[in-house]
């Protein structure tokens, strides 16, 4: 009884801390988004609120709260209110299965898993929640009773569904490697530097492209568009409801960074883990692991922003073409390639380096073959037109 209650309190504290970290990171992402945008455009960025503008997120929040909370008279009132909440809720729920760290020793044989819940379908949970996320946008667009909002929402829905397919297929290769759907197991198989990125270069590229699309970030930010849609699915939203939508985008970014770190970059693994474990004990090592995971996630957040301030967006047909005719066949090839590399090592014959080499060589061969094929097609077309 004693043990369970300690564990319960510890878990509650852990959940609270993760919640706070997620919200804090999301809030400060809005600030760093502007700073990074400014720096990449040779400006200094917002610097009025507090020193170097570090109170900007607070100022934004106050502004959001002060705005008139407007509900269009012809909208479906309840759905209109529920939609942004749904967006926020789904954005936050994903972090439950991300293992933020190893175990903490609480004394007296009580160990706290630094993970919300270790469900054995961990990665499927992520997928389920992420695909629920599109409901927030779709319901919001529909409930606004505005053509443009609806168009934006439809774009968002079809985009998310298209890219979820490729994303799911790229994960299958990970499942083949680790043999489990549990995020914890996936991380544990990557300990000591056996990060999946070494075995899955192609899978990672596919996954990160899909992650951009799922988060509705540039170059796939088609649900929002001023020129065509006046704004997008949130045209009719104002005040904190709009704030929820914008905020959930940043939460999604952080969480997808954490998921990518979990799946491809060894989760809470970091170089020198054994050393720290020896010298300073389990708790310090685990906490450093939490820091490592959050650091990796933040690097991904930076990449999200970096890409946003580099690239223009896709046209809608290009987006669909890339998803259906580019990424899905590629991820299928990736599954086959992973299977082939596993064949060589299944009996423990070839070393790990062998697998790594094979995975990269496979991608290289695929690229060369496709390049030659497309070059020959190109020449043929040229001959035909000449």
């Amino acid at each position, binding site marked *: 009884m004693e043990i369970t209650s300690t564990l319960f309190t510890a878990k509650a504290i852990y959940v609270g801390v993760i919640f706070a970290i997620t919200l804090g990171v999301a809030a400060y992402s809005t600030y760093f988004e502007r700073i*990074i945008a400014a*720096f*990449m*455009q*040779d*400006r*200094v960025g917002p*610097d009025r609120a507090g020193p170097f503008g570090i109170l900007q997120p607070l100022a934004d929040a106050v502004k959001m709260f002060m705005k008139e909370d407007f509900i269009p008279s012809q909208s479906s009132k309840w759905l209109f209110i529920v939609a942004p909440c749904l967006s926020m809720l789904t954005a936050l729920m994903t972090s439950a299965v991300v293992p933020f760290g190893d175990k903490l020793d609480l004394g007296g044989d009580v160990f706290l898993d630094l993970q919300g819940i270790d469900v054995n379908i961990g990665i499927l949970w992520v997928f389920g929640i992420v695909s629920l996320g599109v409901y927030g946008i779709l319901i919001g667009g529909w409930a606004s009773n505005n053509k443009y909002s609806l168009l934006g929402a439809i774009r968002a829905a079809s985009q998310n569904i298209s890219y979820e397919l490729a994303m799911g297929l790229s994960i299958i290769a990970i499942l083949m490697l680790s043999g489990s759907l549990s995020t914890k197991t996936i991380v544990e198989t990557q300990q000591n530097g056996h990060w999946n990125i070494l075995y899955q270069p192609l899978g990672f*590229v596919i996954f990160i492209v899909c992650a951009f699309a799922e988060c509705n970030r540039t170059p796939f930010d088609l649900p929002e568009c001023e020129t065509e849609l006046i704004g997008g699915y949130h045209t009719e939203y104002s005040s904190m409801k709009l704030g929820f939508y914008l905020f959930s985008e940043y939460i999604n970014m952080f969480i997808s960074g954490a998921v990518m770190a979990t799946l491809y970059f060894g989760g809470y693994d970091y170089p020198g883990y054994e050393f720290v474990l020896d010298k300073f004990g389990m708790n310090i090592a685990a906490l450093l692991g939490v820091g490592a995971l959050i650091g990796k996630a933040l690097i991904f957040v930076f990449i999200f922003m*970096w*890409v946003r*301030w*580099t*690239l223009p967006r896709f046209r809608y047909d290009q987006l669909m073409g890339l998803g259906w005719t580019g990424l899905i066949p590629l991820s299928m090839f990736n599954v086959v390639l992973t299977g082939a590399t596993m064949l060589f090592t299944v009996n423990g014959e070839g070393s790990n380096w062998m697998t790594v080499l094979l995975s990269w060589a496979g991608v290289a061969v695929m690229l060369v073959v*496709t*390049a030659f094929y*497309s*070059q020959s097609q*190109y020449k043929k*077309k*040229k001959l035909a037109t000449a």
Partner: protein
Amino acid sequence: MKLSNKTKVLEQGEMTFAERIYLPAIVGGMGTTLKHFFSKKVTIRYPEQKRYLGPVFRGHHILKRDEQGAERCTACGLCAVACPAEAISMVADERKKGEEHLYREEKYASVYEINMLRCIFCGLCEEACPKQAIYLQHDKMVPVFEDRSEVIFGKDKLVEKMDNRYLREGWK
């Protein structure tokens, strides 16, 4: 029709393989933005940092004193006539005996006001003045005012302080 030799015909054929998989171009573009990320910024953190605006910038007006510290303005009103925004108004007065150290000429402006909300900082008052009395300072801006009662600047704000004399670049 060819207008210059600078025209360059771009052949927009089908995209090559490298172009069609986007990634090389994306990485190249990200390199460019990263370069700018670390490059020197062209903007500054304004009210804390300020730039030198040059010797001909037209800022806060000043009513000059001469070397002995007497006000140069003789209230001739030419500046008020020249002012396209009709921002200047003044009241002339006669110099009394014993005030020679205060006012250089026999007639002086006992009230001299510029409405800074009307002023367009054209500098015509400076050009019109026959006594070299009014100048627009190149290194000082009119402070921000938040109330309409603050917009009319009288002599207290305009006349040059003796311990803080105004010198423009190129003056001796």
